[in-house]
């Protein structure tokens, strides 16, 4: 059976059973996948050979050669025959103008969706929600061409019972339909449990939460969830911290702090999602690991030290995206010790360099908002 170790790993509970149980299983699956990429992707093999890395001898996840996310902007790597690639995924356009490109076969695509859904369900529950999407209708409708932004939104809608949008496109700008949003929130006040408000972080805060606060308007939606994703770059410039965002969401929507969920993920490792837990930390699922690297020495750092975030997962088998170093800075918070009860490593994303490019749908969308 192909990827036997990987299949076993995906049978685990979403966050595994603690370090002692997880480490050998993940290492075995990573070795299996690294060997596969080594044997099926010639450039990857050349790189491993030059670095003296033999996947069969993998002894530690830290030894895996990793690729920076920016590598995928100029090189399309494949570990499957071209005819098996059924979709090329591109990331959101960035200020460098070059999106990342990843070759997906059906198996990888299916696996990514499955993993994504499992993590999300683990966090928000398995029931279906009435979604209020802070975006325009085309992002949730059917279309041939799917933008990265729309793709992010649609991936969440597997748990939607009903979807409403409350943003309109006016020329090149996006405009919030405040009246419609107010109407939807008023109606939901009676059935808060079923409501999911979703938006890109900047839009949620700067165009919904903050104006409502300023207008002295608030709702009572206990049990409703607020889900957001995307860049913090623009909010950081306004000195809005994650804590303040949660606090203000609670004031405006009347939700519980643990029901404001900040999602983190990146296209180069599709299917991997890192929502904040009830304790505000981010967890790595059983089929992944996070390593924080020192930007100068590139050595793995212990908990509490800031560095560049590297993510490892065996779920991408159509291209060697199994070990990826991001430009995001973060730190490990602990392992098997989160107050929320989930086992595994927890981490925090601190941010990006002041001179790093605007990246991700949220930051791009923020530029379009009128």
């Amino acid at each position, binding site marked *: 059976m192909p990827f036997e170790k990987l299949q076993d790993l995906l049978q685990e509970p979403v966050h595994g059973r603690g370090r002692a149980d997880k480490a050998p299983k993940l290492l075995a699956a990573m070795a299996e996948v690294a060997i596969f990429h080594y044997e099926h992707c010639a*450039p*990857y093999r*050349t*790189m491993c050979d*030059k*670095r003296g890395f033999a996947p069969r001898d993998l002894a530690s996840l830290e030894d895996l*050669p*990793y*690729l*920076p*996310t*920016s*590598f995928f902007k*100029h*090189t399309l790597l494949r570990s499957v025959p071209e005819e098996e690639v059924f979709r090329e995924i591109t990331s959101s356009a960035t200020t460098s103008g070059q999106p990342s490109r990843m070759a997906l076969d059906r198996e990888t695509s299916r696996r990514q969706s499955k993993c994504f859904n499992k993590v999300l369900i683990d966090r928000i529950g398995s029931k279906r929600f009435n979604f209020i999407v802070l975006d325009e209708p085309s992002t949730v409708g059917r279309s041939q061409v799917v933008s990265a932004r729309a793709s992010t939104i649609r991936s969440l809608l597997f748990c939607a019972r009903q979807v409403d949008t409350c943003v309109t496109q006016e020329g090149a700008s996006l405009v919030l339909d405040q009246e419609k949003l107010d109407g939807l929130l008023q109606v939901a006040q009676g059935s808060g449990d079923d409501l999911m408000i979703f938006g890109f972080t900047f839009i949620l805060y700067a165009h919904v939460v903050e104006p409502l606060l300023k207008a002295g308007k608030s709702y009572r939606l206990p049990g409703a969830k607020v889900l957001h994703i995307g860049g913090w770059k623009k909010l950081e410039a306004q000195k809005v911290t994650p804590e303040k965002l949660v606090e203000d969401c609670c004031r405006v929507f009347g939700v519980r702090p643990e029901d404001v969920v900040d999602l983190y993920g990146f296209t180069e490792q599709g299917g991997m999602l890192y929502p904040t837990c009830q304790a505000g930390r981010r967890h790595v699922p059983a089929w992944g690991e996070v390593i924080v690297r*020192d*930007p*100068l*020495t*590139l*050595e793995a750092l212990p908990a509490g030290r800031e560095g*560049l975030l590297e993510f490892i997962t065996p779920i991408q088998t159509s291209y060697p995206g199994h070990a990826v*170093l991001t*430009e*995001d*800075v973060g730190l490990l918070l602990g392992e098997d010790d989160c107050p929320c009860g989930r086992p595994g490593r927890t981490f925090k994303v601190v941010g*990006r*360099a002041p*001179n*790093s*490019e605007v990246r991700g749908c949220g930051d791009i969308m923020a530029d379009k908002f009128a």
Partner: protein
Amino acid sequence: MTPADLTAAIPIDFLQGPVPAGTTVEAGELGRRLGQARLDLLDLPVERVVSALDGFSARLLARDNPLHRRYPGAGLAYVASWCRRRSLEPLLEESLGDPRALDEYLVRGARASRGLRAWPRGLVLHWMAGNVPTLGFLSLLMGLLTKNANLVKVASSQDDLLARLLEGLAETPGGAELTAAVAVARFSHSQLPQARAVSSLADVRVIWGSDESVATVRALPSRLEALDLVFPNRVSFIVVGAGMLRQGDLKALAQRMAQDISVFEQKACASPHTVFLETESQETLESFARLLAEALQAALRGLPKTPPSQREVAALLNLRAEYDMFHQAWYSRGTEFTVLSDDKFQLGPAIGNRTIFLRRVADLAQVAQLITPKVQSVGVAAEGAELDRLADLLAARGVHRFARVGGMTSFDMPWDGFLLPQNLVRWTSRPVAASGQ
């Protein structure tokens, strides 16, 4: 163009002497004070200027000077070496002929009936880039030597080294007369009223920085007769001749090369980003790449690496992966240095952070095809006829400077084609008596 508002408050680090933190001065007042100081400087013989700077050099080199502890690795010894009499006098002679022309009319050449004198142009505005911290002082030095008043504009993120150096100069015998004609302003690129105001005060604008920032400063209001000396982005590279590769001490060459690559984290315009080896042998290239990697490793002891930003790390790792997959790469365990080799025939790109492209050429003369006005320095590891031929060929196409490998980033005159003191004076002539009196 709308005239600048001279009531703009200019944040000041130093004005004719130390100032309290947070000091601001109206631009008009700043111009008046420096204008008066400039007239006072006229009476100061150039010998006194040189003498004060030479005294400052000794003071700066003193082991107990607290600046060494406060600004480790800032290149203070280098600044001191520039301030020494034995550096300044030859520089003035090269630029002006006889330095006494700054004090009096001198008869030069065959025209015995006319005397020539060099006058300061007035107020020199030094608009500094942030990449090489000591450059501000060296630029200022050229203005002081020619008895100009000087206003140095530093970036808001720049450390306060320049003001501290000027305090030291003011405490040196004769130094206060010089610093009376100096101010250091600090503001960010977004402070447009301040930028417009100081620009409009200048008789000469010496502009250092990226192409974008140089263009921005040039677009600021200026006096009709003001002179602009611009030092925008430049690229530099190294050539190694076939003779050197056959018979030279390649280990020593690699060590000198590592020095050029490591200084200022390759952010200076004279920092090399490419090395052309005159060979057709890949083996020769690879063997030299290994020597260079060892030398870069060793250079870390004397020039510790400044931690790169996340984005810089990504750029480095990106290249390493690409070159490991498709070309050749030699690099440190961390992000300290990276040597790359490919079959491309081009300069750079300039990545920085001690990243160097090693490329083969059959004949160094081919490199002439790559010269653009953007090329500044060429480090040359070749001798005799090989050097003569190459230097003429490349200079004719626009290279501004040839340096020995190992000394590429040393500030030198001429720089970018300018003998700066020459450009900071205006010449007058007058009839003199037949005796030359």
